[in-house]
Structure formats: structure tokens, C-alpha cells
């Protein structure tokens, strides 16, 4: 046996292996650095602003006097976008997925899927342009008191933007339901609607749920379209026709201005980013966990 063992250590192999390992580790270092930076800067933000004011204050005015640091208006703005875009993206995305997996012929699949991929690949700033030059003028023709910048217009384009992701993830979920379940239902006389609604969708529910969670998380983090179309007015409102500001749009606003680094206004950037990061990370963790569970069922 000794004759077959490696006669010497190949240092080149060892070094390469360490190099590869380091490259893989960069992703973990990225996460640790993000969390570290956000934690340190947010902590120093809370040295100057009370935690209760930040989380329960109803006014956000960090750049103008008198200053106020309540994040609720920004959260409300983000929620308006999330609810509005979900109303667009979730039902239509699921309908696209049902069409693709249950009804479409191989040929129309090959046409529709690439088109959805193109929609998914269009930069968000383009959707911002579309919102301002097409959706907002359209809304103003239908409703009377629509402000130039409004949450509804931004929510609609964000919905269009995340729709392809919902469709593609739901399609994957529906297609991983074994054909035998469908055949069983058809053989006892169910119609295509009954098969889809009572057999396939319930079987794929966890995958669909994960897709919805990821879509909401995308909508929360969406930046350029909401900055362009929804405005820059922190506004604690439920009216989607008014101008609002989301967490991400505020961050852009601060970076575009000349805020001196190190000041309190600069630290608000990190405090808002911490909230944004915490919410999206929690949702992504949840979605990935659900997705892994669901893959185990049929694999």
C-alpha cells in the first residue's frame, strides 16, 4: 500500500486549494462586512437619536430644520409600493406561470419564456422612465387628483418589474409537481381548472409562497423606479395618488446631495439601510428555507 500513497506533498496543489477556498470565503466576508458596517454606524446613530423616536416617530425630516428622525413615513411609503406592486405582480405572475406550466404548448413556451426573461433584464431606471412618461400621464387621465410623483405609478412599474421573477419561480414550482397527480385528477373527471386549483397549486404552495416572499423582498429593495416616479416627500399616508418617499429613495436623495461624511445626516443613511437590510434578509432567509423544504418533498 505504501507504494500507492502520494510520495510527496504537492505544494502547488495545496496553495491552489487555499486560493480557491479564499475566493469562496469572500462571499461570507461580504456578509460579515455589511453587517459590521451597518451595526457600527447604526449604533453611533442611536447615540444621538433615541431608538423610540426612530421607530415610532411619525415625521422624517433629517435634512431640514426642525429635524425629525421617525422612520415610519419611509416605512409607510415602502409598504404602499409593496402592496401596490404585489397586487400587480402576484396574481398576474401566478397566472403566467399556470399558463406556462399547465396550458402552453412547447412552442409558445419557447416564445413566452424569453420575452419574460427580457422583461426581467430591463434595467430599473428604464422602468422609472416608463412610469414618468407613460403610467403617470395615464393615471392622470383616469383620476383627478393625481400628483406628478405618486406611489401608484411607481407601484405599477415595480409590479411589472418583479412579475417575471414571480412567473418564473412559480412555473418552476408548478412544474415540479409530478404529472401523476394531474393524471389522477383528470382521470376522475376533473376539469383543467379543478386540476390546477385543487391539485397542482396546493401541491406547489410552498414554492409559490417562496416566490411571493422573494417578490415582496425585491419590491422593498427596488430603488431607481421609486426614486424617479414616487417622489421625495416622506409622507405618512395610505393614498397611493400622493407623493411619498421610500427607504431606498431617501438613500439616493442623500447620496445625490453633498452631505458631509460623518455627520448625523450621513449616519441616517446607515440607519435606514439597516432597517432595509434586516427586512429583506429576513424575507430571503424565510423564502430560501421554504424553498429547500419544498424541494425535498418531490426530489
Amino acid at each position, binding site marked *: 500500500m505504501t507504494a500507492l500513497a502520494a510520495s510527496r506533498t504537492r505544494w502547488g*496543489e495545496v496553495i491552489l*486549494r487555499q*486560493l*480557491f*477556498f479564499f*475566493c469562496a470565503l*469572500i*462571499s*461570507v466576508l*461580504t*456578509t460579515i*462586512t*455589511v453587517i459590521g*458596517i*451597518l451595526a457600527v454606524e447604526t449604533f453611533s446613530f442611536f447615540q444621538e437619536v433615541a431608538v423610540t423616536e426612530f421607530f415610532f416617530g411619525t415625521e422624517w425630516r433629517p435634512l431640514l430644520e426642525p429635524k425629525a428622525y421617525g422612520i415610519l413615513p419611509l416605512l409607510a411609503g415602502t409598504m404602499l409600493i409593496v402592496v401596490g406592486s404585489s397586487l400587480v405582480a402576484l*396574481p*398576474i405572475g401566478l*397566472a*403566467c406561470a*399556470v*399558463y406556462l406550466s399547465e*396550458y402552453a404548448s412547447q412552442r409558445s413556451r419557447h416564445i413566452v419564456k424569453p*420575452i419574460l426573461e427580457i*422583461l426581467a*433584464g*430591463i*434595467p*430599473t*431606471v*428604464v422602468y*422609472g*422612465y416608463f412610469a414618468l*412618461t*407613460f403610467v403617470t400621464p395615464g393615471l392622470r387621465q383616469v383620476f383627478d387628483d393625481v400628483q406628478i410623483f405618486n406611489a401608484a405609478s411607481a407601484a405599477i412599474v415595480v409590479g*411589472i418589474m418583479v*412579475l417575471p421573477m414571480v412567473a418564473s419561480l412559480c412555473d418552476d414550482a408548478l412544474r415540479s409537481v409530478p404529472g401523476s397527480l394531474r393524471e389522477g385528477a383528470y382521470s376522475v373527471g376533473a376539469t*383543467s*381548472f379543478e386540476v*390546477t386549483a385543487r391539485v397542482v397549486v396546493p401541491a406547489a404552495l410552498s414554492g409559490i409562497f417562496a416566490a411571493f416572499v*422573494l417578490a415582496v423582498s*425585491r419590491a422593498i*429593495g*427596488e*430603488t*431607481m423606479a421609486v426614486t*424617479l416616479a414616487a417622489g421625495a416627500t416622506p409622507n405618512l399616508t395610505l393614498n397611493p395618488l400622493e407623493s411619498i418617499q421610500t427607504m*431606498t429613495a431617501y*438613500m*439616493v436623495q442623500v*447620496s445625490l446631495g453633498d452631505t458631509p*461624511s460623518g455627520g448625523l445626516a450621513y449616519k441616517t*443613511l446607515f440607519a435606514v*439601510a439597516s432597517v*432595509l*437590510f434586516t427586512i*429583506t434578509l429576513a*424575507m*430571503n432567509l424565510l*423564502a*430560501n428555507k421554504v424553498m429547500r423544504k419544498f424541494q425535498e418533498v418531490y426530489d
Partner: protein
Amino acid sequence: MAANDLTKRPALGQRSASLRRRHLLAALFKACCVGLTAAAVAVLGLLIYQVAADGLPWLDMQFLTNFPSRFAEKAGVKSALFGTLWIVTLTALISLPVGVLAAIYLEDYAPPSRLTRVIEINIANLAGVPSIVYGILGLAIFVRFMGLERSVLAGALTMSLLILPVIIISAKEAIRAVPASIRLAAFAVGATHWQVVRAHVLPAALPGILTGVILALSRAIGETAPLIMIGALTYVAFVPAGPMDEFTALPIQIFNWVSRPQQEFHELAAAGIIVLLVVLLSMNALAVLIRYQGTRK
């Protein structure tokens, strides 16, 4: 059975009322799904029409060779186009080796340990972090801590971190698709681990890896928020000469034009969007071509 029960039943070949209702519902449902899918597809057409109608009249050589200007007639995308080329080239140079080596480690070398699992889960979650958070990271680390200022290099490093998870995930898939028999055969004739990877796994996985990298880079080209966070300028009237120069990029220039109130700047933005979309679509076409060449073998 009473005879009148039988008379209530439909004759052979006829459907009962409830069955008719069920089939009607199914037909309606199908029409709904088809209609909504068609609507989603139509939105793409609408978007392209809107951009083309606004932007095409402004699109000429002068638009490509002029710097941005306060006057819409004289404004062009030269600095933005070159800025985008700089960013995408540097990002490719940084993220391609790191991403592929990380994927090789995870697929070919990593022991099935807890750390490996942590890395895998971490990469999956990083892919869902909003791009603006990467901008904050770039601002704190590259711009301030490393003192790179608002340079092309700071932008490229930020973009590299942003697309690394995407590159690693797609490269892993490409590497996983290489049949185990190829690896085992190479090991059997005495190749070392690195020799197996370099001479057999990588060449076989190359088309898949390249496709993933190009798609990831095309995402980087369209990203605006992280570049704004690190302080890329919205008005730049020069072409960056080196990686330490300040820069602007196509999406930032478009953002700048869209956010102005004047109609002619919106049309300029549309012209800029056409340039951006042409760049993106040609990269996508390249990716499809490579994938096609790869599958033919």
C-alpha cells in the same frame, strides 16, 4: 329507482348543467391565464414602442460622440458610454476569476462540512440583498476606508461584489453538469486534482460559465443605485483615462435626464435607453450564442 329520476338525467352525449358550468369555468380560467400572459408580453411591446417613439429622433452619431450638456440639442452620451465600458471591463476582470474559483472550490474541493453549508446558504441569500445595500458597502469600504474616492475602480469593485453571487451560482451549475465519469477517468490515470479541474472540468463547463458571466455582467451594466451610492457623478464631461478617474455611466446619465422636468430631456433619456438596451441585448445574444455552441458539442 323511480323513473322520474332517470328523466332528470341528461341523455347520453349531453352534459348536465353542473358539468357545463364546470367546463365553462375551466374555459374562463384558461382564457384568464392566456389573457394575463398576453398582457405581460404586451407590456414589453408597449415599453419598447414608448422608448423608440421618444428616443429614435434623437439618436445620431452626434449623440454618441458628444458629452452631456445643459442644452438638449448638444447633449450626448460619450462619457457615459465610456464609463460603462470601463466599469464592465474592470468588473469582468475582478469577478470572473474570483467567482469561477469560488465555484470550483464549492463544487470540486469543498468537504461536506458545516462551513461549506454556511458558505452555500450565504451565497444564496446574498443574491437577494438589494443592490443599494451593496452601494452602502462600497461607500464605506472602497470609497472611504480604502480611499479610492469616486473612481472607476471603486465602482467596479462594488459591482463585482454585487454580481459575484450570481456568477458563483451559475458557474456551480455549469461545473455540476460535467459528468463524473470524466473526472473519474482523469483521476484514474493519475492526474492531480488541479490537473483534472484545469484540463477536463473547466473546458467542459466553459460555455455554461461564460453564459452566466455575461448575463451577470449585463445586470451590472443596468445597475444604477450602487453607483449613485458610491457617488458616481451625474455630470461628467470627460472620458476616464484610468481606473482612478471619476466617471459616469449610461444608467446614471439616463437617471439624470429622466429626473429633469423638461420634455426634451425625457426624449434624450429615451435615446440613452436605446443605447443601453442595444448594449444589453447584444450581450444577451452573445450569451445565447455561446450556450447554443456549447450544447451542440
